[in-house]
């Protein structure tokens, strides 16, 4: 049994990285706990106060549009969010998720089926999400992209590669 249970935070369309992690902090905040304390600050102040490790985001279209700032992924990761499910993702945000080892799942309809506080079941090995009594397939990633995620992110993958190059 590889399925795990996750409480949902539910948001709308076009949630941008300025409200996920404000730009005024981008050159001054680096500590993960401090990042997490500002997560979703200008969208939902309750999030940073009440989020628990394992909680997931369920959102509408174009999640993470706007600035490329990677802390908009890092702040959620530091808050313990392992998966973000959205109807669609902004392209840089999607890549930042992969590179931080956080699974982005594009599902067009889930947002309309769950409410804030609902629990959904995610089985990454089986590639399935069970929510609102229905089963959804997690869209597969291309093998080269999945490899980054499997390595824990882009930087761990590079670390392994450079360690291999240094080995005799």
């Amino acid at each position, binding site marked *: 049994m590889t399925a795990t249970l996750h409480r949902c935070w539910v948001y709308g369309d*076009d949630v*941008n990285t*300025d*409200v996920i992690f*404000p*730009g*005024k902090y*981008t*050159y*001054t905040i*680096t500590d993960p706990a401090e990042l997490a304390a500002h997560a979703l*600050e*200008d*969208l939902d102040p309750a999030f940073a106060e009440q989020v628990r490790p394992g909680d997931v985001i369920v959102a509408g*279209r*174009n999640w993470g*549009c*706007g*600035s*490329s*700032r*990677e802390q908009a*992924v890092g702040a959620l990761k530091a808050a313990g969010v392992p998966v973000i499910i959205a109807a*669609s993702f*902004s*392209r*840089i945000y999607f*890549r*930042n998720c992969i*590179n*931080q080892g956080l699974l982005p799942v594009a599902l067009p309809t889930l947002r309309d089926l769950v409410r804030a506080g609902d629990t959904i079941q995610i089985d990454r090995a089986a590639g399935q999400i069970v929510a609102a009594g229905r089963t959804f397939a997690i869209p597969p990633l*291309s093998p*080269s*992209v999945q490899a980054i995620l499997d390595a824990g*992110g*882009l*930087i761990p993958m*590079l*670390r392994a590669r*450079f*360690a291999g190059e*240094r080995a005799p």
Partner: protein
Amino acid sequence: MAGRTFAEKALARAAGLPDARAGDILDVTPDLVFSHDNSAAIRRIFAQTGAPGVRFPDRVAITLDHAVPAPTTRHAENHAAIREWVRAQGIAHFFEVGRGICHQVIGEEGLALPGETILGADSHTTHFGWLGAFGAGVGRSEMAALWATGELWLRVPEAMRITLSGVPAPGVTAKDISLRILGDLRADGGLYRSVEFAGDTLGALSLDARATLPNMMAEFGAKNAYLPPDRAVLDYVDARARRPYTPLYPDDDAEYAVEVALDVAALEPQIALPGSPANVVPLSEVAGQPVQQAFLGTCTNGRLEDLRAAADVLRGRRVRVRLIVIPASAAVFEAAATDGTLAALVAAGAAIGTPGCGPCMGNHLGIPAPDEATISSANRNFRGRMGTPDAPIYLANPWVVAASAAAGQIADPREFLP
């Protein structure tokens, strides 16, 4: 065989392949990668990779532009760490405080050329489409990977062709065209796509104006944007380029996922209402809305033509609300100082700032108070963008920003012109 889009040709070239199609995932070696004040954070990520050093320091550019001159000690420490890194790694293209905004400076320096692939740790890297280059934004981890290895995977995007016809009326600009596209097709209308412009409007736009179009396509979800480089662009490039280049043009029978046409001749100035750059209405619907601050600048609209537009509106007038003007680069600053533009703006009551991004993302140099409304020539008006969540931001073209500063409310610049 169907023809190829610009994106297919550019990424095939960057990957060293004879051909590529939309959907292919390629390892590309960009011609230039760049970052800005985020470079110290990227350096810390780079250190975690175990890479021995920056792979191609001659292909790396760094500008200090997002918070310049340093507003706090922490920002100053950030800049200091970047300068040390530039020296240690022999990074070839470093631009100090005051030189200007990355997207503007890299074009002026001839470091982004037609047909090339440019990756920047900044979402507005779509900007380089005005030169006929493939420009795409990446995250900090990806920039660290690019420093370490010189390459990165990219998926070749499907393309969308936007054909523009007609010449914009006086007081109507490429900013209004961009906002209208966002308003009509939504903030994700270009998601994951190569937005490739065509049509007779392009040749009628100045080079300053052309840069605004691909820059704003970042707000459209685009991976990159593209304008076919004409003689005027190639002349600009040839005066600056320090390496050979080959312009790329889409084939006539290229396959586009979406085709859109827009006649801009009858367009009036457009305003993005607070909250989203895609929340767009014609100026007439919001004229009279009081504002407490006006901001003219940024990578979107901080060029000489933009400053001249404001000076044309403000000559012989005084602003009723504070107007902050920040040239996009030192070259723009110098040209505007030489031709009398800055003198006219200062005489009208404008405050002039150091070339850089200024208050665009809420770092400094013009943060509004809660409930103060700003009209801005920037690209984003998300909640909290300028540092204060309860300060609404209206986006507009430079003519409108200047007219609104003079009126103390959102105003039609056409009423101010002779």
